[in-house]
């Protein structure tokens, strides 16, 4: 607070009471966000590192699996417990829960669980591992039991590993998943690439605009600033909608180019990567211009005049005196654009094609379509990780800016 140093003694005497009322004012929102924001986000993240399906459906089996050393095949006691609980969970209709969970790890486990449970209910003996293997030979494979053990909980690395196309094999070592299941690294790299390209495009388009705004007198800069703020104020959905309308095959831009004769056939500008780049750059450009403009405004004009009066060419004065001072603003703007782009969902969903969907699209897919919430949570953790790094970078950046 400005002005506080002049009243240290008085301030200290009152500080007890003052702290009381400032905290009382902050408390309602603090409480609201702790319950309504922090808790849900932490609970969601916890789903990415915990496993509870198997433990819910087969509690005793889960306990026995956790105690088992995981080498080779388990003893017959475990098989007996599993047999009993399979039968019980089939009657309690909790079988699909665990069958789906096991199927994420090892394809085919769903039908294996259903068929085995059905056979046991019809009277097949399930007193030993050998008995189970007679129902289905897969119960004789260590890999199937390893899958069971990975799902026993309470903690699991399964979803986090799966989110980078890795998994634990039967020996407990990390290996790549089969190529046809390996999708996430590609999506992750694509998300980073799209975000980086958008940040770069925003820098290229935004730098000259910020420079012009900073060099104009206020009566010119203020109305032009409104042109930057207008899209900043309109919702991203409306602007994305506008781009779909403009860029589609029968859209305004293609018709215009055809009429003028610049092209002979309509260009594919939407539902592909070009559309994503155009629309996302448009939506995010103000986030680069505004911080950069703020930094440029604070650079005294006299410095450039001093440089040229000392004999620097305009280009040299710009590159050696002006540009280095704008780097913090440029970096801050690019980091803001990059991090915002990482989490984008609406724009890629509407203007992108199947090959342009980003991490957020996968998160939505696993939440709504396959109901694999553990996977959705692990992918969200992946999305938050670079964000934390960026926040750190941003704080470092702020500290390096001269006060």
């Amino acid at each position: 607070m400005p002005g506080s140093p002049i009243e240290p003694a008085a301030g200290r005497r009152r500080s007890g009471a003052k702290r009381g009322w400032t905290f009382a004012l902050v408390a309602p929102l603090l409480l609201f966000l702790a319950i309504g924001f922090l808790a849900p986000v932490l609970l969601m993240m916890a789903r990415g590192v915990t496993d509870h399906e198997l433990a819910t459906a087969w509690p005793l089996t889960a306990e026995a699996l956790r105690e088992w050393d995981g080498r080779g095949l388990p003893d017959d006691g475990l098989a007996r417990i599993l047999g009993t609980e399979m039968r019980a969970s089939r009657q309690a209709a909790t079988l699909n829960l665990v069958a789906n969970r096991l199927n994420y790890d090892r394809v085919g486990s769903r039908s294996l669980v259903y068929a085995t449970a059905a056979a046991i209910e019809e009277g097949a003996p399930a007193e030993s591992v050998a008995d189970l293997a007679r129902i289905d030979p897969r119960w004789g494979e260590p890999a199937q039991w390893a899958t069971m053990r990975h799902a026993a909980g309470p903690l699991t690395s399964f979803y986090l590993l799966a989110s980078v196309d890795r998994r634990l094999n039967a020996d407990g070592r990390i290996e790549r998943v089969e190529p046809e299941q390996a999708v996430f690294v590609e999506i992750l790299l694509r998300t980073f690439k799209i975000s980086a390209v958008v940040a770069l495009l925003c820098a290229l388009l935004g730098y000259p605009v910020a420079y012009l705004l900073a060099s104009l007198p206020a009566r010119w800069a203020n109305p032009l600033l409104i042109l930057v703020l207008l899209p900043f104020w309109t919702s991203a959905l409306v602007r994305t909608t506008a781009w779909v309308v403009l860029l589609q095959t029968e859209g305004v831009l293609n018709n215009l180019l055809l009429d003028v004769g610049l092209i002979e056939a309509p260009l594919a500008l939407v539902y592909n990567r070009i559309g994503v780049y155009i629309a996302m750059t448009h939506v995010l450009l103000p986030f680069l211009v505004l911080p950069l403009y703020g930094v440029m405004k604070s650079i005294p004009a006299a410095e450039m005049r001093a440089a040229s009066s000392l004999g620097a060419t305009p280009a040299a004065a710009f590159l050696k005196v002006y540009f280095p001072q704008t780097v913090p603003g440029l970096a801050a703007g690019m980091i803001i654009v990059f991090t915002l782009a990482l989490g984008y969902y609406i724009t890629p969903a509407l203007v992108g094609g199947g090959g342009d969907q980003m991490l957020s699209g996968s998160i939505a897919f696993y939440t709504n379509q396959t109901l694999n919430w553990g996977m959705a949570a692990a992918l969200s953790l992946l999305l938050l990780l670079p964000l934390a790094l960026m926040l750190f970078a941003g704080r470092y950046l702020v500290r390096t800016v001269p006060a």
Partner: protein
Amino acid sequence: MSPVSPWRSPGQRAARALLVGACTLVFAFLVLPTLAVIPLSLNPSAFLVFPEDGLSLRWYRELMHSPAWTRAFRNSISVAVATTLLATPLGTLAAIGLARMKSRAKPFIAGLFAAPMVVPVVVVAIAFYFLFAPLGLVNGFAGLVLAHTVLATPFVVIVVHAALQGFDFEMVRAAASLGAPPTTVLIRILVPLIGPGIAAGAVFAFMTSFDETVVALFIAGPDQRTIPLQMFEGVREQISPTITAAATLLVIASSLLLGTAELLRRRSERMNRPPVS
């Protein structure tokens, strides 16, 4: 930098012209696409092209007579109003407390207050979804309002906090020393003086909810379909000119509302400008 310098060389003048030209293109890129939906929405034909044979309000009539759109409008308004009513007092109190706080916890509290703005909306959306689904709050009005309030409070805190920057807290001390209880000080002194700032914060809260798409996609039920949801579905399936009419109305609404917020913000700056000494 002064725009016209007497010793400017032809090369510098050419560079300046190049800069102005490039910026004109960027400004056009920023503004024209959003404005282009306006003429498209006035086209009497069912094609999404610029009107050639006169203008028509056909698609606006369509919008007003469509039960889906009018219901979405009512839903959006009621969710946004409820969000504003919750977020404005919460955010205002927090901003006042934060402005006077000297505790070491202050950066962390400020960080938590800003967090809903920084965390990707999809992450917030599924966090709510996972929380609400077992509680039966998915597909409910209350859940959507709560989620929007979380997203809207950072804007209220930031705007009111900014309005407080020029506020002279000696007035609070004076009122208290004359015997006013804290609630009276708050209602009679603080709130009237930073009123425009609070109003601006409320407008931002309203707009945050009114424009919000992602969280609504996850947790709104068929009875809470809002205007952004209606638009999202429309763009995804089949873009009709009705959508350009809706988009036009949204552009006008957000320009008016946020223009109002800007005026209020300036007014609050003027009211609380520290006296020149």
